[in-house]
């Protein structure tokens, strides 16, 4: 019983981190229709931002988000307007936009990585913040990781409510479902997509700050997070906030369970097995709607 509880809680915290990483991408991919391969680079950039504020200016990372998150929002908005807009304009259909955006953001990845390498160097970075134990139901967890889970839940919940309960959210969903028809109802697609993309960027900024509190990172590590986020997003159903949350938590709990009950060497294998299983059973993800 204690073991089960331990696995569930540790898995939940790990899954919270996965969900946190994936939430921004599900917005960018689900609504703005951009497969952003430079996504992880923004996460690392935010982590560097937090590190700089904390070690250089003694600003704690939670407060640091006040600076980092708007900066991430603005830079992603600019990225969309300047780099991606020409691709959106010339794309004849969604498939073409996906291919072009993959190639385009692949280039952006190297630009951001290069800038970070020149600015911060290639070495591993790490600092300690809120790395204190919290005892919940007989399980010990790290406070900084719990914080990541809490933020994932808040961000996921708020976005879900925004998308389903507000007028603007409905407009964004309309863009996601059928851009051409959305335009006919008077929705400014360009503005809506840019907003969705920038909001996704702001979320990954928050994720980067939170994750930097407990993971060691380097300028070259962004792609690891992009991969994980893609898996969670595709598993959860593209553009689905709750899907990303649930898929993240599912991955976290399965990895923890396999590590404790079978062998820690199999955690990566279980991630991909689960991914494959979901895709075979539901090709559009756990909560995705079938494509027309």
């Amino acid at each position, binding site marked *: 019983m204690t073991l089960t509880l331990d696995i569930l809680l540790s898995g939940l915290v*790990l899954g919270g981190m996965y969900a946190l990483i994936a939430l921004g991408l599900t917005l960018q991919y689900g609504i703005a229709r951009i497969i952003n391969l430079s996504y992880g680079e923004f996460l690392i950039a935010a982590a560097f931002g937090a590190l700089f504020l904390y070690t250089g200016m003694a600003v704690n990372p939670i407060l640091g988000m006040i600076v980092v998150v708007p900066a991430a929002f603005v830079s992603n908005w600019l990225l969309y307007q300047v780099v991606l807009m020409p691709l959106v304009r010339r794309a004849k259909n969604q498939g073409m936009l996906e291919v072009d955006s993959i190639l385009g953001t692949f280039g952006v990845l190297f630009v951001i990585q290069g800038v970070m390498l020149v600015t911060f160097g290639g070495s*591993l970075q790490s600092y300690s913040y809120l*790395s*204190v134990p919290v005892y919940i139901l007989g399980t010990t*967890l*790290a406070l900084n990781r719990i914080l990541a889970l809490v933020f994932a839940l808040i961000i996921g919940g708020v976005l879900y409510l925004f998308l389903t309960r507000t007028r603007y959210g409905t407009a964004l969903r309309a863009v996601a479902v059928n851009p051409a028809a959305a335009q006919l109802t008077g929705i400014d697609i360009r503005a809506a997509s840019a907003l969705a993309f920038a909001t996704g960027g702001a979320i990954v900024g928050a994720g980067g700050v939170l994750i930097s509190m407990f993971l060691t990172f380097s300028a070259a590590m962004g792609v690891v997070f992009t991969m994980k986020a893609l898996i969670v997003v595709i598993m959860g159903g593209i553009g689905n906030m709750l899907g990303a949350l649930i898929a993240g938590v599912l991955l976290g709990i399965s990895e923890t369970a396999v*590590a404790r009950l079978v062998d*820690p060497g199999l*955690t990566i294998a279980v991630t991909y097995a689960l991914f494959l299983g979901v895709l075979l059973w539901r090709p559009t993800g756990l909560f995705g709607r079938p494509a027309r």
Partner: protein
Amino acid sequence: MSKRSLAALALAAAAMGALCAGAQAQDTIKIGWAISKTGPFAAGAAVTTLPNYQVWVKDVNDAGGIKVGNKKMKIEVIEYDDRSNSEEMIKAVERLATQDKVDFILPPWSTGMNLAAAPIFNKLGYPQLAVTANTNKATEFTKRWPNLTFWLGLPSEIVDGIVETFAKMNKDGKIGKKVAMVAVADQFGIEQSTAAREGLKKAGFEIVYDKSYPFGSQDLQPVLKDAQAANPDVLLAFSYPPDTFALTDTAKVIGFNPKVFFVGVGTAFPGYKGKFQANAEGVMGIGGSDAALPGIKWYIQHHKEVIGREPDRWASPITYASLQVLQQAIERVGKIDRAAVIKEINTGSFDTIIGKVKLVDGQNKNIWAVGQWQGNDFFGVAPLNKAGAKPVIAKPAWQ
């Protein structure tokens, strides 16, 4: 591109080549390297290798250069980024030798890259001071490629040092016989843990937990919880820097307090002490240095002044020492004769910051297998009979 612009380009290239040749009147010594400035290896190269190349070049040039015959030659550097890709690295090394015509080439970072580079260094006839390579086949390789030298000791020597340290602590009644071992599932982790498993069993230790985890994993709470449940005297981890940090952090959070806490690569980084502060006290790891040695004292301070941070305490001082060996070998030969320099490196005896270096079968034997954080430094504690070895202290519980 039109034929005309192609021709123009060819002309420009030829002109540039002629200019370079003109400037190459030998009063500088050209030294090149291909190293990972981007990609997954960049983090390791940026800690251990590249800063030492930079410090050494600066030191040599500040002193007027390397004395070749009766003139002092300053170093001119040519650097390429291999993007953590062995094919890129090999291409760059070839380019350094054939197009840039450098006099010496400094090696890339990591075991894999150095082994991949060995055939080409050998074919081109350049000495290869493979400092960051660590393999049990070192003797076989140096026989095959006499220009290749190893500096970090064999993995088996590191394991011998570990077993020897634990056995002594056990004999002194400081620890019991239960060891929990975890390792990263790649060549480094598997080679070391296989050797350690054998060595520990032979020395009468009981391995109560023995698992590997995937490369790159930083979520190691499940691993440590099970290790903790086995109630070991020793945690022995063959880990890489990110996981070394994660293991320490997690052990602290879950209150896992074995009498010996031994983590892998990264323990000797100054960043380890920087992150964990007082909690680093008593933690053991691979490597170490004899901080009482005047050369090491000077080196740590000097590295900090030039680069802005302290060096790591495992391969960094050895990298710098290997460059001192190269310099002394060139000066003794008295001309740019690579075959003679290779011979001198292999047979000569050299004074360096780590003390006397005399290669045996192309391998440096002046190494620390086990180090321990004691106060502000990561001191070498094993081999136990090595001069300057500090006695092991008891590790306090996490704060």
